[in-house]
C-alpha cells in the first residue's frame, strides 16, 4: 500500500470517508489490524488509487478468511463449481446452434427415450441465400456464434484460473 505525507488540505470529512472503507474488512481482520490501519489511513491522501487499494485489500482479506475456514472454503468451492457448470452449459448451447447451422436437416439431441433438444430450420428459401456462395453464407451465419463461443471460453478460463491467482496473491 502506498504511503505519503498527509496533505494539509485533506478535510476531516474525507478522512472519515476513507476510514469508513475499513468497515469493508472482515471483523477478525479489523480486531487484529484495525488500530494500525486507522493510523495509516489518516496519513494517506484521498485519491481514487488509494480507495481502490483499500477495496481490493478488503476483497483479499475476505478471501483469506474464507480460505482459513474449512466450511466456508467448501461453500465457496460449491459456488465456483456451479458457475463452471453454467458456463459449460452455455458453451454447449452455442455449440449446438453452430453445429445445427452446418447440418442439412433438423438436429435432435436425445438419449434413449429422452429428447433433450431439437433445432429446426425454416423450410422456405430466400433468393439472396440461394445466390450467395455456400462459404460466404456459412461464415456470415456462424460468425456471431463463434465470437460468442470464444468469449464464453475466455470467461471459463478466467473462472478456472482466477482462484489460483487469488491464492497466490494471498500467499
Amino acid at each position, binding site marked *: 500500500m502506498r504511503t505519503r505525507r498527509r496533505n494539509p488540505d485533506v478535510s476531516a470529512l474525507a478522512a472519515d470517508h476513507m476510514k469508513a472503507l475499513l468497515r469493508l474488512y472482515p471483523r477478525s481482520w479489523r480486531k487484529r489490524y484495525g488500530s494500525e490501519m486507522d493510523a495509516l489511513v489518516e496519513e494517506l491522501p484521498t485519491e481514487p488509487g488509494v480507495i481502490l487499494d483499500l477495496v481490493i485489500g478488503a476483497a483479499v482479506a475476505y478471501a483469506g478468511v474464507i480460505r482459513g475456514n474449512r466450511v466456508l*472454503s*467448501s461453500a465457496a468451492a*460449491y459456488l465456483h*463449481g456451479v458457475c463452471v*457448470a453454467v458456463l*459449460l452449459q452455455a458453451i454447449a448451447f452455442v455449440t449446438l446452434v453452430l453445429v445445427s447451422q452446418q447440418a442439412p436437416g433438423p438436429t435432435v439431441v436425445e438419449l434413449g427415450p429422452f429428447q433433450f433438444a431439437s*433445432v429446426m430450420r425454416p423450410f*422456405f428459401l430466400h433468393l439472396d441465400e440461394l445466390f450467395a456462395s455456400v462459404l460466404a453464407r456459412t461464415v456470415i451465419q456462424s460468425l456471431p456464434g463463434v465470437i460468442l463461443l470464444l468469449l464464453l471460453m475466455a470467461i471459463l478460463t478466467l473462472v478456472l484460473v482466477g482462484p489460483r491467482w487469488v491464492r497466490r496473491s494471498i500467499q
Partner: protein
Amino acid sequence: MRRASAAVSALLLAIVTITIAEAALAALLFVFSYVLRINLTLELGSAHLFFQSDSSAGPVVELFSPAALSSILFCAACGLAAATRTFRHWRPTT
C-alpha cells in the same frame, strides 16, 4: 440440534444457489437467442416459454423438460464435487 440446523442451512444454500444459477442460465440463453437470431422455446413441465427473435427465418431451438432436469442435476453435481474435493483436501493456512 446444531448439526440439524447446519444441514438445513447447507441444503437451503444449495437450493437457492441452484435456483439462481438456473435463472441466470435461462437469461443467458435468451440473450444468446437474440444475438444469434434464433427462436427459442423452453419447455418446463406443462409450461412453455417462447422467445421470438426479430428474424422469422432463424432456426427454432426447443429445449425439453429432460434438458432442464439434467441441467439442474449437472449444476448440483458440479457444485457438490467441487465442495467435496475442497472439504477433503482442505489444509489450515499457515
